[in-house]
């Protein structure tokens, strides 16, 4: 059964608050965006609304962490990392405050609202800052496991929480280990590395491709930092071609990370990056249309793999 990623997070908030975890949730008029109403009904005193004031949202979260609480910020990713970029850098990362930043509805989840509301640069921004862990869970189960993990681990965290509802994937049942890549399908010659919930389209594409006699590997990436670089190298070495899939600019996100590893470790794996083209904004269109436009949906991924397969004779 499908479940929302945000609902999975809110369930953990309720559980943890009931168990006595000293958390506080900060929102910037984003109670509906974050779907925290069920939490707010039970623990109204643990919700702080600062109004539409993202700089104060993040600065205040840092202060509340210094005061001994575990603050969680919950608002739209573009405003969290855009408007309060310097607060994220200085007050959270450089100061190493125990704040859990949750960037809601990243990528082009806000579709037709356009680039003002898109967040196709958040991984790029966060990789530029030191001291902070960067996660993007693949399904509701992993979102819950990851969320519980970070609430009990000291230190700053950014969670890119996709907006969709999704089924739990079989491979996430093993639990959440920071840094580990999730092997969803084991194939030959070509591997797809997918960021967060993009992996669902990749698995669907792999099933279609299998029927066409093309057997590919699919690996989910929910942990950008920490990253098990040796595991990543092993995966890349085991394939001739890698396709990265992310609702993010191809610059600075997962595709860039993989390119760095291939170059620095001299792996020779051929790389194709699917995402928002370098140096452009995604159009102000419904999310599904944008996904199709950039070949990030199931059909687009199938097409990309077939093109690549033609060249590598998968």
């Amino acid at each position, binding site marked *: 059964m499908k479940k929302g990623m945000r609902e999975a997070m809110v369930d953990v908030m309720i559980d943890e608050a009931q168990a006595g975890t*000293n958390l*506080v949730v900060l929102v910037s008029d984003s109670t509906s965006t974050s779907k925290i109403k069920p939490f707010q009904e039970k623990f109204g*005193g*643990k919700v*702080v609304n*600062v*109004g539409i*004031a993202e*700089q*104060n949202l*993040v*600065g*205040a*979260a*840092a*202060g*509340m*962490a*210094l*005061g*001994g*609480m575990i*603050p969680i910020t919950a608002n739209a990713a573009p405003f969290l990392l855009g408007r309060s970029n*310097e*607060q994220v850098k*200085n*007050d959270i990362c*450089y*100061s*190493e405050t125990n704040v859990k930043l949750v960037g809601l509805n990243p990528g082009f989840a806000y579709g037709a609202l356009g680039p003002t509301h898109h967040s196709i640069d958040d991984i790029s921004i966060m990789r530029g800052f030191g001291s902070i862990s960067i996660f993007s869970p693949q399904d509701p189960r992993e979102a819950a496991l990851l969320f519980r993990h970070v609430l009990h681990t000291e230190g700053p965290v950014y969670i890119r929480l996709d907006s969709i509802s999704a089924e739990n994937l079989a491979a996430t049942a093993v639990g959440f280990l920071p840094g580990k890549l999730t092997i969803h399908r084991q194939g030959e010659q070509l591997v797809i590395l997918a960021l967060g919930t993009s992996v669902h389209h990749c698995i669907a594409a792999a099933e279609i491709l299998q029927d066409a006699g093309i057997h590919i590997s699919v690996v989910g990436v929910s942990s950008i930092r920490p990253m098990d670089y040796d595991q990543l190298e092993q995966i890349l070495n085991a394939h001739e071609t890698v396709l990265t899939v992310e609702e993010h600019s191809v610059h600075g996100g997962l595709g860039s990370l993989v390119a760095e590893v291939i170059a620095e470790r001299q792996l020779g794996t051929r790389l194709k990056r699917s995402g928002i083209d370098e140096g452009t904004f995604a159009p102000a269109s419904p999310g599904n249309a944008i996904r199709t436009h950039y070949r990030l949906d199931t059909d687009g991924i199938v097409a990309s793999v077939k093109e690549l397969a033609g060249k590598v004779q998968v």
Partner: protein
Amino acid sequence: MENSHLLSPDNIKEKARNIRKKIIEMNSHAGEGHTGADLSETDILAVLYFHVLGVTPKRIDAPDRDRFVLSKGHGAGGLYCTLSEAGFFDESWLKTYLKPDSRLPGHPVRQKTPGVEFNTGALGHGLPVAFGLALSAKKQNLPWKTYVLLGDGELAEGSNWEAAMAAAHYKLDNLIVIIDRNTLQLADRTETIMQLEPLQKKWEAFGFEVHCANGNEPEDLLNVFHSLQAGNKQPKLILARTIKGKGISFIEDKAAWHHRIPVGDEVFAAIKELE
């Protein structure tokens, strides 16, 4: 927690004089620093660390200590010299100021210096963080207070006014904001660059309990701190009128000394004025 010094105004003045000497010696030794800003805030810091703040160098991580955030992070030198004078670390550390492996970097870093509560440097960050600190104390029913020192130039940053609005909204009478009102910023007079006045009315309109003080006069500052009302659900604002570079005649009230340091004979002349 009570302040471990609780000095009288006259004794605080003596401490402020020592701190100023340290600032001159430390900055000239390091070859860099924000001398004007350090001297401007000295009396405010001396009053805080030698009487007002519930902190003790013996228990720097005590959960029940008062919190102090230096929003004007470029005043780090003044803070270090105050912390050293108050016994938070050995005076010999001041000789390492700005060296790559020093525990006294150019802007405050909480991971490096005992007694520093928060990393500042970029302006307009201290008040939102102090708001969060004060709110966390309220949420947890804890009695400690949060103090934050702002420069006047940084009041042009909009983040201050976001936090000011929120502090009044959440009725944080445990938050004490002090403005080092020396009327000079990096390049010129604050009022030439961006008009801040009428500051008192602005903060009153935002819902603060506002007080004015001579920010270079410990007795006046102490009187104001003692007059702050408890339990009235209003955050506090102390408009502390200061002179940038206070204490050294040739440094006082000159924008050029924002980040100049005394050199050669200036060092001896400055120290002589303090003796």
